[in-house]
């Protein structure tokens, strides 16, 4: 099982609903966020191109945060989801500096926090909160090892990219182009 997410950049309108849904679902402390929206503008006026992406932890298969963690607090869980075990985290912040996506942050209680792909929902067969609320159905969540899953089909038929694959992280969040 390899959990992954695909964000359709042609459907995403950047409404930030996913951000709010995540903060509500996961009780993310005020002033912090586990996911965010990036707007990328390329070209010269009047020929401009806009790409909108909902970004989060890329749940890398070769995660630098897991590698640099001195205590095994950062670890791979079900389906390759990268999680932080609060009671093993010493707050050394090595994982934060090793993440090229700046996807982690310091929880006010001291441990390091990040996107969990809503593993508590996924284990019940539900979609992550951000995916479930997306008003334009721009996000697809599923198992890459299942050829019949929606995400496998989308990846097979659409053009896609991932973020900074050259950092060698093998990210599991994809952007459909």
């Amino acid at each position, binding site marked *: 099982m390899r959990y992954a997410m695909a964000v359709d950049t042609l459907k995403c309108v950047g409404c930030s609903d996913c951000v709010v849904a995540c903060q509500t679902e996961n009780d993310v402390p005020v002033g912090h966020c586990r996911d965010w929206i990036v707007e990328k503008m390329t070209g010269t006026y009047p020929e401009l191109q806009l790409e909108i992406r909902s970004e989060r932890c890329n749940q890398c298969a070769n995660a630098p945060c897991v*590698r640099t963690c001195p205590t095994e607090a950062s670890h791979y869980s079900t389906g390759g989801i990268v999680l932080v075990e609060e009671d093993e985290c010493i707050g050394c*912040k090595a994982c934060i500096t*090793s993440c090229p996506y700046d996807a982690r942050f*310091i929880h006010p209680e*001291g441990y390091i926090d990040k996107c969990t792909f809503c593993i508590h929902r996924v284990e019940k067969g539900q979609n992550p909160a951000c995916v479930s609320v997306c008003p334009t159905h721009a996000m697809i969540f599923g198992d890459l090892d299942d050829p019949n899953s929606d995400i496998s089909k989308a990846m097979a038929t659409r053009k896609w990219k991932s973020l900074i694959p050259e950092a060698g992280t093998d990210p599991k969040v994809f952007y459909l182009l």
Partner: protein
Amino acid sequence: MIEEIITSGRMNPEIDPVLHVWGWEIPFYLFLGGISAGILIFSAYFTLRNRQDELPVAVKWMPLAVPGLIGIGLIALLLDLSHVLYFWQLFTNIRWESPMSWGAWTLGIIMPLSIAWIAIWIEDIYPKWDWKFDEVKAVVNWLKDQRRIIAQILILLSVILGMYTGILLSAFNARPFWNTSILGPLFLTSGLSASAALVSFFSRTEVEKRLFTRIDIILIGIELFMIVHLFMGHLAGTQVHIAAAQMFLGGAYTVPFWIFVVGMGLILPFILELLELKHKFVPAIVPVVLIVAGNLMLRFIVVNAGQASRWLY
């Protein structure tokens, strides 16, 4: 034109807009760790060469400072941890892929070993020293018999300690400025250089002073060579490495680095120490203060600049 902005207002403290999760604690600790490693390497090396009576400050006196220096460094490290009550987790896990893990273990071993090393020499320094208990005396005598083995272990562990302070940073490929393997040897050399300068400052004999001044001159030369290599490597690298090097070649770190670290922390003391060897009068305190301050500043700048460098996407 390419413009990327976060429109949902991400402002995670210490992450945005520029990463700054490591404040003064980490560079300060790297500085103390580097000097401790340097002191122990010199002390153990010249013990193995049987020159302890000729070079008393380097072999017998300087190690007295090590447990204190490492202790202060450890306090700084603990202050940096945001979930500090769980710090013991460092010692219930060994993670070979994580430099921080084997650094913690190295420190855990080197701390008691440096105290044992002091115990070996303390009677040479204070002839009236009394261990009070026969059991302690027996242990110390046993340690004295193992002097050469302990010295060898100490050199190995101190080299690891000195290198690891740099490798800790170079293991992060997410921060291009740190992502160069020369950082380990550079920090080791600069730690050795600072401790050589301290030995030559505190030493009372001409032989020891001149030897360590000469050693320090060579070490500064190696350091300058490595700094040039650091930038050659980055400039010959990918776009993100070039951008990282640009922070020092016209960017925000240009003046602090080239004037204070390279100019006043390396080249100036290099010249002053050369003059000392030629028997010109140089106030002894000047080169050592310059070198130690440059050492500290190098680590502050490297830690801060690394956090400011990133993958552009």
